[in-house]
């Protein structure tokens, strides 16, 4: 621990917990085995608080706070799993399902998909909002990887890992509102990207089947995440 960093004690779901002041509510909850669902967050990347799945209640505050970016405070009382939160989380997941074209049955990530998994854990048996059926492209121009925008949930993990870990900044987000999409370089075909190093980090941090390796059929794409904590640790050593 860095000198001068203080420890804060507080409560999560009634349990007494302690965390360093530079930790977030999510960090401390995870350390204590309290599950809080996440989608855009990934340990090792900066947090952006975009998917809103990790919203928690803090007693005495009217606003819900995203656990992934909320610093711990002395004496705070966090509620992670009220009925209201569960309800919001289910609806947020439904929002992700309706805005894309998620056909789990034909997806390379079927069975290994975070979106699919969360739907089951949080009890989404169906989506009660109307689907949008957007017309989104698939780009298979890269020699080894494919991006299927139908399955993209705009978590931006690929953008962050490429910028923060690989250092290439090949990915970014274009457009606004419902038209946002991840792009490589000047939105050219991925295979023609001048900046992509082909490292595959983006593919392996992607929570769904939006980014995958060629040569995998339905349910065959397993994402390997070990590299991220490993790289973080190795860089810290330097």
């Amino acid at each position: 621990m860095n000198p001068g960093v203080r420890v804060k004690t507080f409560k999560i779901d009634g349990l007494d917990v302690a965390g360093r002041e530079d930790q977030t509510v999510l960090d401390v909850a995870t350390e204590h085995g309290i599950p809080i669902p996440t989608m855009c967050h990934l340990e090792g990347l900066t947090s952006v608080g975009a998917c809103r799945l990790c919203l928690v209640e803090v007693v005495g505050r009217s606003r819900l706070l995203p656990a992934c970016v909320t610093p711990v405070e002395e004496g705070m009382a966090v509620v992670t799993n009220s009925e209201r939160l569960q309800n919001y989380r289910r609806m947020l997941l439904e929002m992700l399902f309706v805005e894309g074209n998620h056909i789990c049955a034909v997806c390379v990530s079927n069975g290994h998909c975070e979106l699919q998994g969360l739907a089951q854990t949080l009890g989404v048996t169906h989506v009660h909002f109307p689907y949008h059926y957007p017309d989104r492209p698939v780009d298979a121009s890269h020699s080894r990887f494919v991006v299927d925008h139908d399955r993209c949930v705009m978590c931006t993990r690929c953008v962050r890992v490429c910028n923060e870990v690989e250092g290439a900044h090949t990915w970014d987000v274009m457009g606004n509102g419902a038209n946002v999409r991840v792009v490589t370089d000047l939105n050219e075909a991925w295979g023609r990207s001048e900046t992509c190093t082909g490292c595959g980090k983006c593919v392996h941090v992607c929570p769904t089947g939006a980014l995958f390796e060629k040569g995998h059929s339905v349910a065959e794409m397993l994402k390997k995440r070990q590299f991220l904590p490993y790289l973080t640790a190795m860089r810290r050593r330097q």
Partner: protein
Amino acid sequence: MNPEELLQKNVSHQLTAEAHGHDVRVCMGAGCMSLHSDQIKSALTAQVKQHGRDKSCHVKGVGCMGLCAAGPLVSVEPQGVLYKEVTEEDAGEIIDSLNKAPVARLICPTDTPFFQNQMKIVLENCGKIDPERIEEYVNADGYIALIKALTEMTPNDVITQVMRSGLRGRGGGGYPTGLKWTTVAKADGTQKYVICNGDEGDPGAFMDRGVMEGDPHRLIEAMAIAGYAVGADTGYIFVRGEYSMSVKRLRKAIMQAERQALLGKNIFNTPFSFQIEVRIGAGAFVSGEETALIACIEGRRGVPSPRPPYPAERGLWGCPTLINNVETLANIPSIIRNGADWFSNIGTRTGKGTVVFAMTGRVQNTGLIEVPMGTPLREVIFDIGGGVPDGGTFKAVQMGGPSGGCIPEQYLDMPIDFDSLLEIGAIMGSGGMLVIDDSASMVDMAKFFMEFCRIESCGKCVPCRVGTVQMHELLIRFSEGTATERDLVLLEELCDLVRHTSLCGLGQSAPNPVLSTLRYFRHEYMAQIRPDFGANGVDTHESRSTS
């Protein structure tokens, strides 16, 4: 330039003004400009020349005079005559009458509530001075407050005055301005910034534009005072790209101020240095949100970030940053000049000072107005605004634009201030005041604002990105009369979700126009519903499923 020199300059200009004898002011606000007031100004100038009165009469363009409905407006001083609906052809007659009786057929009476019931602080110079001449601002006691702050007060004194004045942010939230200044002043860091938020993006709002185009030096003075108070040496005025006139006037004003050493190094020979740069937005409503605005100035996509950290601690380029909106800052010179007590005596217990509204819609006197906080809505709409024209009946007033809500007749006697508006589901916010009469559909109104939010959503957080699309689609069905009862349930669920889970203010407030119309005009939604999911649960809805 020292204070004495400035004063001297002030006086000398006053003398030349007196020598002129007559001041003919032509409104160059956006409303009058759209009716070609610039050509009227040219015609008047030509007539002055033709009448050989160049020496005794001065024609000048001024900022918004307020009563846009009667534009183009021209006033003649020192007589204090206001002319309405002036055309180029009237120029000769107006100049001809300077030493005689005014042109009766053009006179716009000023003994009406529109002029008598207003109180002007923010707009005190708007419509009076030539915004492109620093001399006129100085002549109107401009930069006195800055001199006072720099030569007679410590930064702490300035903050104390702002704190004691009770001024609250006019950009939406109503956060105490003094508290914000204190936070930035106390924040760690040698480099700090002041940002003036002029990204007025609400449809139907043009208060900030009025100030930026009608009295730009006021903002420069305020920003310099703020910079002094919080310890910043650089300021940015962020103006929405559509306001090219604002950008032009502000840039000119900055140049003039620099030339007079009112900006730059060691202002008034004090250790305080301050520079200001104008940054132009590029057409994104969301960049009015503090963190998005900072991203925009940094040259990034203008998407909001979670707060904390607040910009006051970690803002522009990671430095403590004070962000105030145009109207908020425009109050500062008057507060410093006249003192906190003067300001805090105006308004209500929780809302001090005045508030500027852009009054539009089905109301007689559309235009820019300023009234003390606590003025009842009824007075604003029916006395100052002159009520609904053409025998229409008042139905509601929409306040706060896409983030605000509708207020029905029953709340018209409520005094306007931050908290009372919040209570009934509207916000003071952007200051747009749209009067609606019984010919309008509240469902369509809600649909209009939701479409705006859908288009303007930055797309970062899930509830706003998807929820606004969903709500807009549902509102289309209501407006077409093809909605079902189930749609109403979905709409209410979505309002709740988007309001409570969105990342920034845009998303959190996007459902407000729907919520407030559902609250006060639910029957209008119900009237648009077709029988649905009848006793046996069969949806008789066909419209979305025909091939």
